[in-house]
Every structure is written in structure tokens, then in C-alpha cells.
């Protein structure tokens, strides 16, 4: 037991560190793949070294330095990225002075906010957003994320790879949106956290009703986000909502794993600490003009949590809050919940006008956040569990005989009585719970639970309008904001299929020169003049380095200081190490195919470029002795290649010089001659249709005159 707890705490610390590490590396290299690999390497190194040498004073700084060195090594090893290395090296040198190993934890900026916004970018599909967030910010391994969404590991790995590829190729920026964009972008982030929690609170698939691990992850993410954006009231509201809802977790399940209605729950089991924390957060979230939906929902949850018993629940206030919520987001589910609250306040008859006022189905077009094959976070909000009120005699005939529409409450195969009659947290129309029949999900075809009608919301006399058939015919329409859900994002890269080489890890970041130090800027200005027809000018500027402003100091965002990982426990240590390795293995395996193909392309391109007639690019001469932080390319090639299909030993790559500056010499080329030469070279250089990577790769094959 103790051991398990130790394992959990070590893991938590590492995951916390890992996400910060990833954020820093991703911000610097603008490359999630690279960041991930070197972060894993650094953690692995830490697991090897720390038990022997002791845990360093500044664990994150140690990890960061190690990871950065490994990144530089890795890029150096990649021969075709030689020129890019120059910029990286400059940047890395500067970074070393900016963030010395001695710097404390608080001195290192917490870049995770950028990562949050990148991972939750609306241009990514919702399932990819959740997966990336769990992967990179919650620090789950790919198999764990796959388990969370109940899909095979390979599927999840592929999904993550695809999302990362899109981030790279469509150039989704790593940045925190400005204050003017924040209102538009923040909901996407909040929603991801919310969805993860909802799936943990009321799992839409699998055998268990609760997935405590997911709920915990969501709360952890919400806490991180709250630390990063303490003044954003919706973030506060979301955290409060999650805490107040999660506080009831222990009471929601009986010994047999069945659900317990709110009315029947043993309120002594509710977590008083979480409730108190949530209530503290609700106040600032609600205070001030322009209250957001999460804050209102948190307030409703707080009212339920405050009630000493079900009967003493403050229904009038809840109704009032639902009124507010309905104005913020007029969704049929909110209206439904409001009607329920009115019924609880004034009796069933009082609520019947509300039923008839429910919007027409066309306007509550179902949106499903996650398509059927995808993760199954439910969209509806994990409202305070409430038993639907006895509004009228349950019309059992219509409820049980008709296969659809089923009421929101019985859309799942588990006992559903406690299912929240949901309100919605997002502007995306209504919930999936209203879209009760999902044909591709086998569990929906299963026999109904015998008591499934128990928690059903009794219907008014007429046929309810939440008709899934109708809704599926009618494409979902984003009501307030956001893209059309449930549809493949038109931006999703289809062209690069598995097995095709992924695009470059990094490419030119525009405005790079402007952000460089003056000395480097001079060099780049010189390059700028050489640019037409030169390879180097392009490639240098292609560098993935995201140059940090020299004067960038520790920012004022709050940082956290995790506990020192207790490495006293050998078992824990071994387990962690094993998991780190397993994770790395799985990831590499998933990338193997693509990596192999890419290496081949790179090798051919490289060889082609080395043909004498193509050597019209300026050479970079390395005159610097190798530094400890950066092993020369020759020795790096001796280290074990990670790819299963390493490039065959070719001619030694040109030694590339980190300080690109003064050593940059145009190779045997008079600038006046260049246009003609370039044209000739280009004529020989096979360019082909962008559609066909394969044909391109074959024509890059070194000419056979060898």
C-alpha cells in the first residue's frame, strides 16, 4: 500500500515535471516529436543517474539541460539538418546562459500554457485535442491514453502522430493567444478538460460507471490551468465545478458498482475538503460582470453539495441559476434541467409549460464531440446527479416500447438512475446524451436494462423532440462558436499516409531573423542577400529553433515546486524505469515505418545534394572544437541509431559549424554566376507534383552515373 502510494507520488512528480519539460522543449524547438523524445531520454537518464548520484537540487533544471543537450545531439546526428544545427547551436548557447543549471525551479518559466493552447487548438479534431492534452500535459503514456479512450494502443499512437503532424505541417503556432483572442480560444481548452472529467465521472463506455483515473487527470489539468491563468474566472469556475462534482464520487457507487441516486446517497461520504475548496473557488468565479457557464454550473453544484439532505436542497436558487445559465447558453438540455428544478421547487405541474417550451429538434441538433470510433467522453456536463422529478406518471408504453427516442437518462447500458439530466457547458448545441442512439456503438444495441426506465425523465404527452434520427439527418450546426463537430476536420492531413515520410520536423519560422541577436541577425542579413538559389539560406532559416528573447527572464506566471522525488524505494524506481522504457518503445514502434521511409528520403536527398554540380550552396566550416554539450557528428553516428532502418553508412556529412556566423563561406560561387547555375541545377533537380511524394522520392535518387 505504502509502496503503491510512493509509486504514485514519484510518478506524479515526474509527470508534472515532464509536462513542464515538454512545454519548454516544444516552445524552443517547435517540434513536439523531438521534445517528447528528448524529454523521455532525459527522464530515463535521471532514473539512471539520480539513484546513484543523488537527486540534484534543481531537478527540472537538470532535466531541461539534459534534454536540451540530447536534442542538440539528436539534431546533430541528423545529417541533413546540418545547417539547421547552426541556428540551434546559437540558440542553445544562449539558452544555456539564460537558464543555467544552477537556476532554481522558480526561475524557469512555465511554458505549459502554450502547450495547452497548441494541444487544444480548434483546428485539431476533438479526440486529438483530448489525446494530446492527456499525452503531453497530463503526462500519460500512449498506452495509458489508449486505455483511457478504450482504443488499441496502435490506434491511439496513430491518432497522436497524425495530430502532431498536423501541428507541424499546418504550422499551428506554439503561443498563448493574446488577450483579445483568449475568450475565443479558452473554451476549447476548458472543454477538453471538461470532457476528460465527464468521461471519468460517467464513463460512456467500458464496464465501470466511474473512471476515477480520468476524473483525477482532469482535475489535475484544471489545477495546472488554474495556476497558469489564476485570473480567468471560467478556469476557476471549471476547477470548482470539477471539485464539487468529484466530491460526491465515493457516494455515487454502491458496493456492487451500481449507481446511487443523489437522493439516496450517503452524504457523509462526500469529500468535505473538496467541497470546501470548490466553494472557495466558486465565489471569485461568480463575482463580477459577465459570468461564464462553468461558474454557474459550479454554483449549482455547490448548492447541491451544501444541502444537508436532498429535501433541503435550495431549489429556488438552483432555478435562478438555471435561468442565468439558460441565458448564457440557450440549450435544450439546460432548459430541461431548469424544468426539472422548477418541478422540484413548485411541483410537477409548474414545470409542464417548460416542457412544451423546449426547443424544436432542429435547433438542438445533436453534436457529438467524439465520433463513434473515437474517445467517448460524454459531452454533457456532469451536473449534480439528480433524480428526475415525478412530473407526471411515467408513460411506460412510450418509454419502453419505442426504441427511440430514448430519454437522455437511459442512453447508456449501465444503471442510469443517477445520470445527471444534463446541462451543457459549451456552446455546441446540445449533448450527446440527447443523441441516444449511436448505431455504431455496440453497447447501444444491447438489450435494455430491465430497470432502465427508472430514471427516465417522464415525457410530456407529446413526442419529445430530441429525435436522434432527425438529428442525424440534419447536420449539426455549431450554435455559438466552434467548428462543426463530428466531422473530419477539413484541415486534417490526408495526403501523408502511414508509411510516407512525415514532413520536416521544423521549418523556417518567419521573422526568425528579427528575433535573433544582432550578431546573428547580421549573418542572416548576409544570407538574405545570398538567398536566391542557395540552399543554406533556406535551411539555416528553416531551423526549428525558436529563439528566446535575450532579455527574457522568468515570467511572472506562477510556478510550482513539486516535491523531491523520493527515490528510496527500489521497486518504485524500477517500475518507473520500466514504464518509461515501455512508453518509449511503443512510441518508436509506431513511428518506425514513417521514420524508415524518411531516413531513406533524407539519405537520398543528402547524397544528391552532395553531387558536385549541386554544391552551389555555401559550405559551413566547423572550426570549433567539439564542446561537451555537443558531440561531433562523426562520433554521434556511432551511437546506436534509434530507427530500425538507419541510413546506410554513406559519405561523411559535411562538418557543420554551430556558430554559423563568421565561418559561413559561399562555396566556389560567384554571386553573379548564381542565377544561371541555379537554373541549371534546378533543371536537373527533379521537381515533381506535390501530390506524389513517392515519385518525388524516386526522382531524388542519386543519379545513376556513379
Amino acid at each position: 500500500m505504502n509502496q503503491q502510494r510512493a509509486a504514485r507520488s514519484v510518478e506524479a512528480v515526474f509527470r508534472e515535471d515532464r509536462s513542464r519539460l515538454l512545454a519548454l522543449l516544444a516552445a524552443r524547438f517547435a517540434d513536439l516529436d523531438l521534445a517528447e523524445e528528448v524529454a523521455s531520454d532525459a527522464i530515463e537518464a535521471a532514473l539512471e543517474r539520480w539513484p546513484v548520484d543523488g537527486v540534484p537540487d534543481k531537478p527540472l533544471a537538470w532535466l531541461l539541460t539534459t534534454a536540451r543537450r540530447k536534442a542538440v545531439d539528436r539534431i546533430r546526428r541528423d545529417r541533413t539538418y546540418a545547417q539547421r544545427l547552426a541556428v540551434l547551436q546559437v540558440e542553445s548557447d544562449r539558452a544555456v546562459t539564460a537558464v543555467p543549471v544552477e537556476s532554481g525551479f522558480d526561475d524557469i518559466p512555465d511554458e505549459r500554457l502554450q502547450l495547452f493552447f497548441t494541444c487544444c487548438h480548434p483546428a485539431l479534431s476533438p479526440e486529438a485535442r483530448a489525446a494530446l492534452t492527456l499525452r503531453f500535459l497530463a503526462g500519460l503514456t500512449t498506452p495509458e491514453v489508449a486505455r483511457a479512450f478504450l482504443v488499441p494502443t496502435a490506434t491511439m499512437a496513430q491518432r497522436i502522430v497524425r495530430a502532431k503532424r498536423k501541428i507541424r505541417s499546418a504550422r499551428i503556432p506554439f503561443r498563448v493567444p493574446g488577450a483579445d483572442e483568449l475568450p475565443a480560444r479558452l473554451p476549447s481548452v476548458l472543454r477538453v478538460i471538461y470532457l476528460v472529467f465527464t468521461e471519468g465521472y460517467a464513463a460512456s463506455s467500458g464496464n465501470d460507471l466511474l473512471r476515477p483515473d480520468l476524473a483525477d487527470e482532469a482535475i489535475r489539468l484544471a489545477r495546472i490551468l488554474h495556476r497558469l491563468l489564476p485570473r480567468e474566472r471560467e478556469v476557476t469556475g471549471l476547477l470548482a465545478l470539477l471539485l464539487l462534482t468529484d466530491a460526491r464520487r465515493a457516494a455515487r457507487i454502491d458496493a456492487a458498482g451500481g449507481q446511487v441516486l443523489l437522493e439516496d446517497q450517503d452524504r457523509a461520504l462526500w469529500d468535505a475538503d473538496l467541497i470546501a475548496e470548490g466553494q472557495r473557488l466558486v465565489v471569485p468565479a461568480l463575482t463580477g460582470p459577465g459570468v461564464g457557464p462553468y461558474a454557474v454550473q459550479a454554483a449549482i453544484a455547490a448548492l447541491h453539495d451544501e444541502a444537508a439532505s436532498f429535501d433541503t436542497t435550495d431549489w429556488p436558487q438552483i432555478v435562478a441559476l438555471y435561468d442565468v445559465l439558460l441565458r448564457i447558453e440557450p440549450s435544450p438540455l439546460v432548459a430541461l434541467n431548469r424544468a426539472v428544478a422548477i418541478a422540484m421547487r413548485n411541483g410537477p405541474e409548474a414545470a409542464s409549460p417548460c416542457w412544451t417550451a423546449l426547443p424544436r429538434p432542429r435547433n438542438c441538433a445533436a453534436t457529438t464531440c467524439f465520433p463513434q470510433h473515437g474517445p467517448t467522453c460524454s459531452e454533457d456536463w456532469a451536473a449534480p446527479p439528480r433524480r428526475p422529478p415525478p412530473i407526471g406518471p411515467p408513460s411506460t408504453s412510450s418509454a419502453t416500447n419505442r426504441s427511440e427516442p430514448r430519454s437522455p437518462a437511459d442512453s447508456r447500458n449501465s444503471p442510469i438512475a443517477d445520470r445527471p439530466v444534463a446541462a451543457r457547458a459549451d456552446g455546441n448545441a446540445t449533448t450527446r446524451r440527447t443523441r441516444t442512439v449511436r448505431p455504431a456503438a455496440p453497447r447501444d444495441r444491447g438489450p435494455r436494462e430491465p430497470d432502465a426506465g427508472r430514471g427516465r425523465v417522464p415525457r410530456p404527452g407529446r413526442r419529445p423532440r430530441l429525435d436522434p434520427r432527425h438529428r442525424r439527418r440534419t447536420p449539426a450546426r455549431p450554435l455559438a462558436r466552434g467548428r462543426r463537430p463530428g466531422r473530419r476536420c477539413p484541415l486534417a492531413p490526408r495526403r501523408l499516409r502511414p508509411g510516407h515520410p512525415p514532413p520536416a520536423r521544423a521549418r523556417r519560422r518567419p521573422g526568425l531573423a528579427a528575433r535573433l541577436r544582432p550578431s546573428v541577425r547580421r549573418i542572416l542579413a548576409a544570407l538574405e542577400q545570398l538567398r536566391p538559389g542557395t540552399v543554406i539560406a533556406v535551411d539555416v532559416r528553416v531551423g526549428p529553433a525558436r529563439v528566446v528573447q535575450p532579455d527574457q527572464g522568468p515570467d511572472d506566471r506562477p510556478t510550482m515546486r513539486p516535491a523531491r522525488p523520493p527515490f528510496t524505494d527500489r521497486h518504485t524506481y524500477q517500475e518507473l524505469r520500466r514504464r518509461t522504457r515501455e512508453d518509449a518503445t511503443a512510441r518508436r514502434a509506431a513511428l518506425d515505418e514513417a521514420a524508415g521511409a524518411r531516413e531513406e528520403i533524407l539519405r537520398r536527398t543528402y547524397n544528391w545534394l552532395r553531387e558536385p554540380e549541386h554544391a552551389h550552396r555555401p559550405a559551413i566550416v566547423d572550426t570549433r572544437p567539439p564542446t561537451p554539450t555537443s558531440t561531433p557528428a562523426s562520433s554521434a553516428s556511432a551511437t546506436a541509431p534509434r530507427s530500425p532502418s538507419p541510413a546506410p553508412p554513406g559519405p561523411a556529412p559535411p562538418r557543420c559549424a554551430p556558430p554559423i556566423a563568421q565561418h559561413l563561406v559561399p562555396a566556389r560561387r560567384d554571386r553573379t554566376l548564381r542565377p544561371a547555375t541555379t537554373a541549371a541545377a534546378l533543371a536537373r533537380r527533379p521537381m515533381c507534383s506535390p501530390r506524389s511524394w513517392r515519385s518525388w522520392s524516386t526522382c531524388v535518387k542519386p543519379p545513376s552515373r556513379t
Partner: protein
Amino acid sequence: MHEERTVKYLLLINTPSPDSTEERPAQGPTVEEFMAFEKAVSDAGVKLDGNALDTSNATTVRVRVNGERVVTDGPFAETREIVGGYYLLDVPDLDAALDWAARCPGARYGTVEVRTVWEPDQS
């Protein structure tokens, strides 16, 4: 590699699909709106190219495996969503491209698809 490498974004302005049930303005975007957008894009210096396409005279060509050339009339905006125009922009990242796409008058009426121009030397 022979020229400065930039990632260019292509905004494909699609006409609304006739079966779309989405609410949209009754009238299509006006010429003035497009002129204003055109001016904004040009003034910002991000426009590389951009044109409206005639949606009434599309012809589709396909060559079969046996070399036979198949020419068909269409597609037509009356029957499906088709590209009504495009802009080629040079902007730093996807966010900027999406901002421009959102400002495009076509986005309010139909859809605007944002794509990057594939480049062979991406790796």
C-alpha cells in the same frame, strides 16, 4: 530549396452546399465586401494571389486507366459545394491564416477551407 521557403496557405472559398440546412445570410457576399477584403489582404501584404472563379461553366476531365479521356459537364454550384474562389496567402502560421479566412466574406455565406501548399522539400 531554390527559393525562400515559406508555408503558403490557400483559402478555398466554397459555395454553400445546397443541402446545407445551416442558417446563413439570404444573399451571398456582395462585391463590396469582397473588395474590402481584397483591399485588406493586399494592404497587409500577405496576398500572393487570389481570384474569383466562374462557377457556372465547370468542366471535369478524368483519364481512365486505358487512356480514355472522360469529359463531363459540371460540377455545378446548384447541386453541390464547389470552389468559388481562392486566395493564396503568405502568413506565419495557421492562426493567422484562420483569422484571414474568418474575415473572408465567403466564410459567412459558404465555407472557407484552409490548406497549406505542399512543398516537396519539407523534410
